[in-house]
């Protein structure tokens, strides 16, 4: 499997998770989730609304930079993607930096809207391709946004699962713990245990992530490659053959 094939498989995997959504918002710097949302819309007409933030042509917000956050609070965004320099076993994410705050080294850009959106969007999919003990840690150095909250805290959303280049974990909010759902081709349970810094539930018989549906893959390559290229030209050039 080439790198391009792996990325296409991730796109198809994520697309399937968005099928029950009406409105998916994606950051302009998130090509794989963005492509997945565009693919799901093309394949099933669902999500009906895909909003690529920071883009001009594919962003339908007209109320300024605050509309995303208001829209989430209104319950009008069903799914969103978050990443992080560190993600831990309780689904806490760290976008701030390594080491003691405020003199983090390295310092990452900052928390963006994560401390808010993680509470308000029902299905937040954590997406981080790098699957190492450096990124998937036992405890983050800085909690940009917590994975779970006490019952008295107003919280309408949170982590749904975590997708990396190696595996797909579901998050159990009650148990405050990830469980391994499937292992991508090319990896193994041993590989995942070796490279994951946090403890998680798993079964010895964890299945392999199923390959993308050929029809879906074809749709991505034939029809969706063009809108993807319009939004994410650099990314598109790396996964779609030049025609």
């Amino acid at each position, binding site marked *: 499997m080439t790198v391009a094939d792996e990325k296409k498989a991730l796109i198809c995997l994520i697309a399937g998770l968005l099928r029950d959504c009406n409105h998916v918002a994606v950051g302009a710097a998130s090509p794989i989730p963005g492509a997945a949302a565009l693919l799901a819309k093309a394949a099933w007409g669902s999500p009906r609304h895909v909003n690529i933030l920071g883009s001009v042509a594919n962003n339908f917000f007209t109320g*300024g930079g605050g509309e995303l956050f208001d829209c989430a*609070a209104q319950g009008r965004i069903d799914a969103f993607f978050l990443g992080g320099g560190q993600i831990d076993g309780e689904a806490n994410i760290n976008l701030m930096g390594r080491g003691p705050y405020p003199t*983090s080294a390295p310092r990452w*850009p*900052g928390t*963006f809207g994560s*401390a808010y959106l993680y509470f308000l969007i029902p299905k937040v999919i954590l997406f981080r391709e790098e699957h190492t003990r450096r990124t998937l840690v036992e405890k983050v150095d800085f909690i940009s946004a*917590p994975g779970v909250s006490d019952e008295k805290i107003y919280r309408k959303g949170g982590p749904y699962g975590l997708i990396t280049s190696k595996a797909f974990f579901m998050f159990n909010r009650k148990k405050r713990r990830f469980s391994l759902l499937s292992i991508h081709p090319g990896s193994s349970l041993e590989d995942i245990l070796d490279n994951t810094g946090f403890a998680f539930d798993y079964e010895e018989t964890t299945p392999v992530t199923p390959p993308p549906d050929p029809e879906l893959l074809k749709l991505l390559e034939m029809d969706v490659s063009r809108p993807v290229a319009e939004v994410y030209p650099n990314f598109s050039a790396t996964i779609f053959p030049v025609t």
Partner: protein
Amino acid sequence: MPAEYSDLSISDFASAIPDGAKLAIPADYAGVSMAATRALIRRKAKNLHLVGVPTSGLQAELLIGAGCVATLESSALTLGEYGPAPRFTKAVREGSIHLIDATCPAIHAGLQASQKGIPFMPLRGILGSDVLKHHPGWKVIQNPFSESEDPIVAIPAIQPDIALFHAPLADRDGNVWLGRKRELVNMSHASKTAFVTVDAICETSLFETEEMAAGVLPTLYVGEIYHAPNGSWPLPFWNGAKVDDAHMQEYMKMAASDAGFNEYLERYVYGESAMA
């Protein structure tokens, strides 16, 4: 607004921004006045308090590198796909700037509180984030409308002295067109005044049609306008210009070292190969 924009040089424009000013600045994709940024560095502005609305990028990076910044209040400083901002990274590691790290909707809420003349705005989320723990201004209060325990974060108003940004168009009355970039409207209403560089001057009133009027910031809120074609360079501009990719890559290389960053300033800011 005076109609004689041409009387004003970009140096005058930057000189009207005092040392110590609290400046609201937009994210890299929303219309950054890089022309004014370079002029601020040339006039050796000091102790600026930058408010990234809700984030900042190359503008804050350059001002921090050039020693103009005392405080950075923002939800992020990002150069996007170009990678970690070298001067910002260094300043954080050395503790040479004061950080007020926030989260995007809280920056918007603080500005909207100022816009509405209220002391604070409550905001959901945030509880349990270390951003709350370290923020000097936010408070957790009980929701006065809930019978049971219901903590909520109160975000105090943020009132910048000046909203500084780049827009496509201004007319001779001092009205500015900014389309659907309404965060620029909010930050101008929230600030004491707005300083705007524009790509072009329009000889007819922006209020002539309701289509244009819908995207106008009225002159009442505008302090200074400077005609700076392509004034967001090398950043992209939503009204047309693409990022100058080669320049950004050159920046990343040069800014990796102190000497290289100084050479960058010499070449592109102090020197006249800068666009403005």
